[in-house]
């Protein structure tokens, strides 16, 4: 066993996902504490050319599994081969793709799983994971059971680590070990339907303006988009707004949508049901705007503005533009 910290580095469309850069920096932090190296396990289009570049964000070595965009789970057998007896921990993004691969590693190697974590540390030669569980009502600290095999698999939410900037290092690209035959490789994309409009990856946004049932219509999201633009952020939504067809499901935040961790979350016309809350409760700052002074979101927001979102949101957009321009 080595003290290396492995991480999944997903590429698509020729470039690394932001999660790859965040996890490179996170893995480097943990590796510094564990006395090992940060090792990227890279896959997807752009991985062959881009893996060495993860060195700038902290990776020491990079294993490239493949350079094509195909269902992420089909890379799982190769990830399993690369992770076998290979380090103290494997960091995976807490996204659908990251979870699928992480799960395959857990099932294949009988290793412990943690997460999604709100913090992870390398201490005493092992991994310590801090999680919010039971819908945020309890914080637990967990470790691998005594004698549990490694690497521990750790699911990490976006924005848990900030990619190191200004680095110039280059990761040493090493050969991927041979992967065994696996039925997991049999999934294929039979059809692909792209929407006309490009949809932002909400997990990567550091500022999110989210709308719910109170927004009332597709057009109602206009003022939210203006505010998001003024703040350099993205628009999100509750399930009610996505179900109503006002906004694509890619922008849904919550238990069955994206789990986000922005530095600023502004919820407008969102009541704050538990299913939405679990998708945004790790936001650093939460501002809520709602007509209902008793809305549940008022109980956990940092700032609760009682009023009509259609008056307050445009006024806030004007105010921010004025201050930024002035």
């Amino acid at each position, binding site marked *: 066993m080595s003290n290396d910290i492995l991480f999944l580095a997903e590429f698509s469309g020729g470039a690394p996902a932001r999660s790859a850069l965040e996890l490179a920096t996170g893995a480097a932090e943990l590796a510094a504490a564990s006395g090992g190296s940060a090792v990227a396990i890279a896959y997807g289009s752009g991985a062959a050319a881009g893996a060495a570049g993860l060195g700038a964000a902290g990776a020491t070595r990079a294993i490239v599994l493949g350079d094509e965009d195909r269902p992420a*789970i089909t890379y799982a057998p190769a990830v399993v081969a690369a992770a076998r007896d290979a380090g103290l921990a494997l960091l995976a993004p807490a996204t*659908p793709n990251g*979870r*699928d691969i*992480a*799960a*395959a590693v*857990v*099932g294949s190697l*009988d290793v*412990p*799983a943690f*997460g*999604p974590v709100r913090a992870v540390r390398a201490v005493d030669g092992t991994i*310590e994971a801090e999680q919010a569980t039971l*819908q*945020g009502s*309890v*914080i*637990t*600290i*967990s*470790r691998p*059971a005594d004698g*549990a*095999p490694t690497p521990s698999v750790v699911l990490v939410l976006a924005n848990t680590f900030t990619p190191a900037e200004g680095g110039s290092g280059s990761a040493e690209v090493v050969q991927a070990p041979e992967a065994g035959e696996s*039925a*997991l490789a*049999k*999934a*294929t*994309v*039979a059809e*692909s*339907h792209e*929407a006309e*409009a490009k*949809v932002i990856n909400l997990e990567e946004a550091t*500022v999110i303006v989210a709308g719910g049932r109170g927004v009332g219509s597709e057009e109602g999201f206009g003022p939210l988009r203006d505010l998001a633009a003024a*703040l350099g952020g993205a628009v999100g939504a509750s399930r009610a707004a996505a179900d109503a067809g006002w906004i694509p*499901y*890619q922008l849904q935040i919550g*238990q*069955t949508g994206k789990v986000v961790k922005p530095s*600023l979350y502004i919820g407008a016309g969102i009541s704050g049901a*538990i299913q939405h809350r679990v998708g945004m409760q790790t936001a650093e700052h939460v*501002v809520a705007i709602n007509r209902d002074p008793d809305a549940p979101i*008022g109980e956990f927001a*940092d*700032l*609760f503005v*009682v*009023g009509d979102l259609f008056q*307050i949101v*445009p*006024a*806030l957009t004007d*105010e*921010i533009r004025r*201050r930024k321009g002035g």
Partner: protein
Amino acid sequence: MKIVVTIKQVPATGADKRYTDDLRLDRASAEAIINPLDEYAIEQALRLADAGAADSVTYLSMGPDQAAEALRRALAMGGDDAVLVTDPALAGADEWATAKVLAAALDRLAPDVALMGMASDDARGSLVPGAVAAIRNVPLLSYGAELALADGKARIRRLSAAGYDWIEAPLPVVASVTDQVGEPRYASLKGIMAAKRKPMETLSLADLGLSADALRGGALTRVTEARPPEAKPPTERIENLPPAEAAAKIADWLAARKLI
């Protein structure tokens, strides 16, 4: 075509939940329900059965004796029979151990599709479907907004970065579905009565050829500390102000935190 839907009994959403002194979730302290996201898997399976694409729907759960109630509730919605894996050694089982046990039970049931909810209400990893697929060495089709079966293959419609894909794999598969498959049906009175007569089998670890040792006591992880979240400063409120003044106050608040 045989579908097995795995279901988990969880504390009711919003119920008072706590950890016991030995740092395990106290499952006796709260009202128990079918994990809400598993109800979508049930609904998807029953829709396939209604359409004639599936011949039988079996429910599989791992849990304490009381989990039989969750299985009865599922049978009241529809389906044919149920299997409960229960064993004292499974108290405190983590996702890895759960996957091991479900995989062993699925080996015995040999379904064409093992169908699961996309996550459980009380554990946020969403790792069980993928771990079961890896253990059984069958393809994984995850996070489906819809599941379709035809020509010896299963297909799911899954959100992509900007649209959606249909992803397919040859049977047998493990599949998981989201809340976009459609609202779960209610159990009718007739369904509730019929459920009482549907077969339910109870299995122990030994019945599945597993031992507590092989499952390392039920978990590869251990909780070393459970505590309430850090106390947050009380919510600041802005009320009864004209929009422009409220906006200026919000902007001040954001500026004080270097957010603008």
